[in-house]
């Protein structure tokens, strides 16, 4: 007669906490790169710097921020989440991890 009782699900597996640190380090590197580029005032390089900054702000920072949030959600959950949600969050984390860590800005060339 125990069949007519409540539901109890297994606890979810935790996401790798190292992901958050890695993603935050990547974000920090890109933010420092923006600062560095903002301090270049040479008329010859300034337009390119502005372009680089725009691309980092629009195409890299949001993805990294979302990846960090996704990794934190996966670490913070006390209840199992639907498979689809976990897949979406893992995908966001992976998209962040797949971005280039700042290594001189070569990959940011237009």
């Amino acid at each position, binding site marked *: *007669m125990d*069949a007519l009782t409540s539901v109890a699900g297994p606890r979810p597996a935790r996401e790798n906490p190292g992901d958050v640190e890695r993603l935050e380090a990547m974000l920090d590197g890109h933010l420092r790169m923006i600062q560095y580029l903002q301090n270049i005032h040479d008329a010859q390089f300034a337009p390119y710097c502005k372009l680089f900054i725009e691309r980092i702000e629009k195409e890299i920072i949001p993805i990294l921020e*979302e990846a960090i949030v996704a990794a934190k*959600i996966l670490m913070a959950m006390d209840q*199992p*989440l*639907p498979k689809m*949600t976990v897949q979406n969050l893992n995908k966001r984390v992976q998209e962040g991890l797949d971005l280039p860590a700042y290594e001189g800005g070569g990959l940011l060339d237009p």
Partner: protein
Amino acid sequence: MTLETLIEACGLLNDTLERGEHQFGHLCRLVELLETDLLMVDQAGEKEPEAVLLPTLELLRGVIQQQTSVLLEHKARLKQLMGELSVRPEGALVDALMLYFSRLFAATKDTAWIEQQEEPEHYTERLVDGMLPSQSIRFLSGEGQLMLGKFTGSTTSWLDMKARLEGHQYWISELFSTLPPGHGLAQPLLLMMQATERRSQRVEDQILYQRALVELERIGESMSGVRGSDRVFSLEKLRLNGLMVSFPESIMEGCE
């Protein structure tokens, strides 16, 4: 067989048939409740019931009806036999009816003997049309009847429905385990078990979506102000909301 022994055997058989009839009634009620719950889950998903569900229910009800009608025929003939025994115990009709009941008398006697043994589940009963195996009768008159009581409350949430479906899975599987291989009820019960499992999974998914939404709200509050959190949370909540279906409002019998 002396007349007294025969009358005693008739009495034993009559009791067995009465119990059997009663338990077929319980089984019918359990099947009705099962049907209501399964159709409610289908209705919530705004889907047509699976093509296989209604024929399976018909098959199950058909087997119960067929077995019950045979049982009622046994009862009618037993009444006739007992009547004949009181007026013309040596008559030709008694011989004919005795022939008709030979398997039933033997099965009832066997079952009574098996039930007196220490481990009755280790013995195989004779399969006779219109008679439920004694283990099935024991289950239906005990736990099965208690299950009926559990199913009387109204269902207002997916959590309630999950508990009900677990209850249905329990009685189907327990009843199935009491049936010898090849019993007419075995196959439709197995099909109903599979149909119930599929609905149970759908109901579990709905409970998971509801809980996940609450969980995302909780984590979202603890991360408010974190850059990017609005975008992630709103999208995931939107996706979850798209998968959730509200629990159908139950329609009371007799009301529209």
